Every structure is written in structure tokens, then in C-alpha cells.
């Protein structure tokens, strides 16, 4: 019991640290990717290849003067960024970071908790995350911030609907809401039987989910809440120092978590091809699987950046039209077809 508790504590701290580490180095990677796409060098002064840049940025943000607008609600002004950061970190709990690890004959799961409604938990936390933006934007008492906050909430609610419906098709197929079981469903090469990744069966669902994930993370081309050409800085116009840092940082954590969820739901999670045919020991498979999951995550983080530096920003009405008139009917159609196919094959 004590060792299990100790293991869980270590796992929680590890997931927390890795989320922060990935977010910090995503900022570095984003600048390097942008530089590569624009034929520049990017940050290269702090440390070799500019690798210490995230550290320098962090120190800079902490050292900056903290300004709270005179007229704003002080408590809510602090609550906004804190809430955004907390909800960004909360979703890592249900993601299966790896299979069972065998230590002294006891199996430990590399997932903090396997609640049987894993996906719904993620949706619940994401839907609370929007309050961080709304409260922060409203408490700033600035028209640009308020407009940014309202845009953010409208956008997130709209795309949550299509996102949820695209996931229901997947849930109908796998018959479970637990992220662990969805991962196991995609295990490759188990004793001769082959399971493909979910993206093979549900390509539409994946596409809709991916587009919605961009909108939920407020990433370009859907970064209208902080559209600098129209709204100065959007919802975080009035924020300075580390409060701004929390907003920016949480966005990168959200990106990391979305990449992890996309990998888990559609790209096999911690499974990799031929994992049971190579004759490796259980621990080796688990460690390789975790490495496979992280390489998928890193690919999707790169994909997020690739899109950001390729496609221009949408107009607001285009965004809403795409969400309600494009993605929502498509996801309902996908749901109907999936249901019909399941019904035909189960007979």
C-alpha cells in the first residue's frame, strides 16, 4: 500500500514536471520552427543552440514589474490566470503514459488514475478552463480584454460540441470511455491478432477532433481571442509579469496535453507496431511504449507549430461558420454512419 502510494506520488510529480518541461521547450521549439520556416536562425545566444532560452524567458517574466489595473477586481484578476493554469495541468491525470511496469514482481500502471469515464473527465476540465480566460478578461476592465474573453468563450463552446460528437463515434466503436481501455484496444500484434490504430477506422472523427483541438487551444489559425491586429493582445492585454507568463505557459501545456490525447485516442497511445512479436521483456516494452507515445506527442506538437506558421488567421465569422455549419453536421453524419456500420456488422 505504501509503495503504491509512493509510486503514485512519484508519478504525479513526474507528470507535473514533464508537462512544465515540455511546455517550456515548446516555446523554444516554436521559435526555432518559425525561424526555420521563415529562413532565419531563431534564438541562439543563451547556451549552445539557444537551449537555455526558456530559462532566460522565465527569469525575465518573473523579474518584470507586476501591474494590476486600478479599477479591476483584484481577486478575480489573480484568479483568472491561476484557474487557466490549474485546469491545464489537471488533464494529465487520466492519460495513460505507459503500460504496466514490473518492479519486484508487482505491476504498477504508468497512469495516475484510470477512471472509467476518462474522456468525459477531460471534457469537464476543458470546459472549466474557459473560465480562466473569461474571468481574467472581464476583471481587467478593458474593452479589448472583454472582447477577447467573449470571443474565447464563444469559440470554445462552439467547438466543444463538434469535438464531443466526433469522440462519441469513437466511443461507440470501442465501447468504453476509459482512455486506458481505448489504448489497449489498439495494441499491435498481440499473439498474431492485429489491431489497427483508431485513425484507420475513424479518419473523419480524427480530422474533426484535430481541427477542434486547434480551436480549443486558441492556436493559429483560430487564435482570435488574442488576435493582435484587432484586439491589441486579446484577453491578456492588461496582464504583466508572471500572470501573463501563466497564460502563455498554460497554452503550451494545453497543446502538449491535446497532442497526448490525440495520440492516445487515434494513434495507438503507448502501443507501437510489433510490440509483442519482438520477444522483449515486459519492462522493456513499457519503456519503449512510453518513448513511442512521446515521439507521437512531439510530432503532433510540431504539427501544431507547422500549421501556425503556414495558414493565416481566420476571420471571426468564418470561424463560427466552420464550427457550426461545417464540422457539426459532418460529425453528426460520421456518428450516423458509424452507428449504421456497427449495427450491420453486429448482426
Amino acid at each position, binding site marked *: 500500500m505504501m509503495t503504491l502510494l509512493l509510486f503514485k506520488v512519484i508519478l504525479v510529480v513526474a507528470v507535473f514536471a514533464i508537462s512544465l518541461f515540455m511546455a517550456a521547450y515548446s516555446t523554444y521549439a516554436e521559435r526555432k520552427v518559425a525561424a526555420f520556416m521563415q529562413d532565419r536562425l531563431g534564438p541562439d545566444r543563451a547556451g549552445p543552440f539557444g537551449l537555455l532560452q526558456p530559462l532566460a524567458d522565465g527569469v525575465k517574466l518573473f523579474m518584470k514589474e507586476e501591474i494590476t489595473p486600478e479599477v479591476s477586481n483584484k481577486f478575480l484578476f489573480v484568479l483568472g490566470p491561476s484557474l487557466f493554469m490549474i485546469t491545464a495541468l489537471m488533464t494529465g491525470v487520466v492519460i495513460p503514459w505507459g503500460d504496466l511496469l514490473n518492479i519486484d514482481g508487482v505491476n504498477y500502471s504508468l497512469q495516475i488514475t484510470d477512471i*472509467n469515464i476518462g474522456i468525459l473527465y477531460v471534457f469537464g476540465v476543458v470546459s472549466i478552463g474557459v473560465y480562466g480566460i473569461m474571468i481574467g478578461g472581464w476583471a481587467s476592465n478593458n474593452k479589448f480584454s472583454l472582447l477577447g474573453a467573449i470571443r474565447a468563450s464563444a469559440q470554445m463552446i462552439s467547438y466543444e460540441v463538434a469535438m464531443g460528437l466526433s469522440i462519441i463515434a469513437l466511443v461507440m466503436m470501442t465501447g468504453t470511455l476509459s482512455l486506458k481501455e481505448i489504448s489497449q484496444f489498439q495494441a499491435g500484434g498481440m499473439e498474431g491478432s492485429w489491431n489497427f490504430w483508431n485513425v484507420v477506422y475513424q479518419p473523419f472523427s480524427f480530422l474533426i477532433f484535430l481541427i477542434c483541438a486547434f480551436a480549443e487551444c486558441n492556436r493559429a489559425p483560430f487564435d482570435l481571442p488574442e488576435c493582435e491586429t484587432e484586439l491589441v493582445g486579446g484577453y491578456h492585454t492588461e496582464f504583466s509579469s508572471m500572470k501573463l507568463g501563466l497564460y502563455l505557459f498554460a497554452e503550451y501545456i494545453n497543446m502538449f496535453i491535446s497532442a497526448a490525447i490525440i495520440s492516445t485516442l487515434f494513434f495507438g497511445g503507448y502501443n507501437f507496431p510489433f510490440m509483442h512479436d519482438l520477444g522483449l521483456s515486459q519492462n522493456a516494452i513499457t519503456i519503449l511504449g512510453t518513448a513511442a507515445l512521446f515521439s507521437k506527442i512531439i510530432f503532433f506538437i510540431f504539427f501544431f507549430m507547422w500549421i501556425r506558421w503556414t495558414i493565416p488567421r481566420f476571420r471571426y465569422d468564418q470561424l463560427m461558420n466552420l464550427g457550426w455549419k461545417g464540422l457539426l453536421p459532418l460529425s453528426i453524419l460520421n456518428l450516423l454512419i458509424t452507428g449504421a456500420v456497427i449495427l450491420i456488422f453486429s448482426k
Partner: protein
Amino acid sequence: MLSQYLFYFLSFLAVISALLVVFSKSSVQSVLWLIVTLFAISGHYIFLLNAEFLGVVQVIVYAGAIMVLFLFVIMFLNLNQEVEAHKPAVLKFAATISSGLLLIIIIGSLKGSEQLGTHVGSNDFSSIKNLGRVLFKEFLFPFEVSSVLLLIAMVGAVMLGKSEKEG
């Protein structure tokens, strides 16, 4: 023992934040307290009734979507000035009586619900399979009727929005 303390804590939180919803001067703060109330109630579902599905759906639908729309409208209308709207005394009287009647109806409808719990077969409310079976076999008719009710409300909302635009 622990669940008893948890019950008292969550109930206390729910009642206090519900009172703060009514007594807050600023309407944005009222909405934020209402969100705390909803969280306390879904805490009841998750930790005390073992109904994780219900609790999480409550958070997604009420706290995550409906309250965001509330906040949205209030922020747009700029009701954040601490001005209290004064309604005529007749209206206040009518509101008190009708909400009192609603309370009686709710208590009355809950009175027979003790026998309903046995339908699930086991105490495992968290299993969505059990919930789905009960909902689509034994309570299919009420379930469909309530979905039609929601549809009517949705059509009504669309109609209201449309007529305002044209008129």
C-alpha cells in the same frame, strides 16, 4: 465516517454559495457563486453517490456550457455596476409564492423516489452500461418524453431569436 464529513462539507459549501448567489451585489459574482454551488452538488454525485457519470456531465453541461452563456450575456449587457433593480411589490410577492409552490412540487415528486433505486440491480451507478440499460429499457418512455421537451425548448429559443431580428 469520512463520507459523513464530506457530506457536511459539500452541503455546507452548496448552501453557503447558493446564499451568496442571492446576496451578491454584482451579477458576475452571483454567476461565479452559482458555479461553486454546481460544483458542490456534482461533488455529492461523484464522492457520495458513486455516480461519476452524472457528476461529470453536470460539470460539463451546467458549469461548462450553461453558466458560460450566462456569464457571456451578463458581460455583454454590462450589468457589473452595483445597481439593484427594484421591482414592484406585487411582482416580488408573486415570485415568492410561485417559487414556494415549485419547492413543494419538487419535494412531492422526490417523495416516491426511494423505491426507484432498486432498478439498477447493483449499487454501481458509475457504470454507464448499467445506466444505459435502465434508461433505454425500463425508463424509455420518460426518457424520450424529456428529450422531446428539450427539443421543444430549443425550437422555441430559435423562434424567439428569429422574430426579434425580423421585427
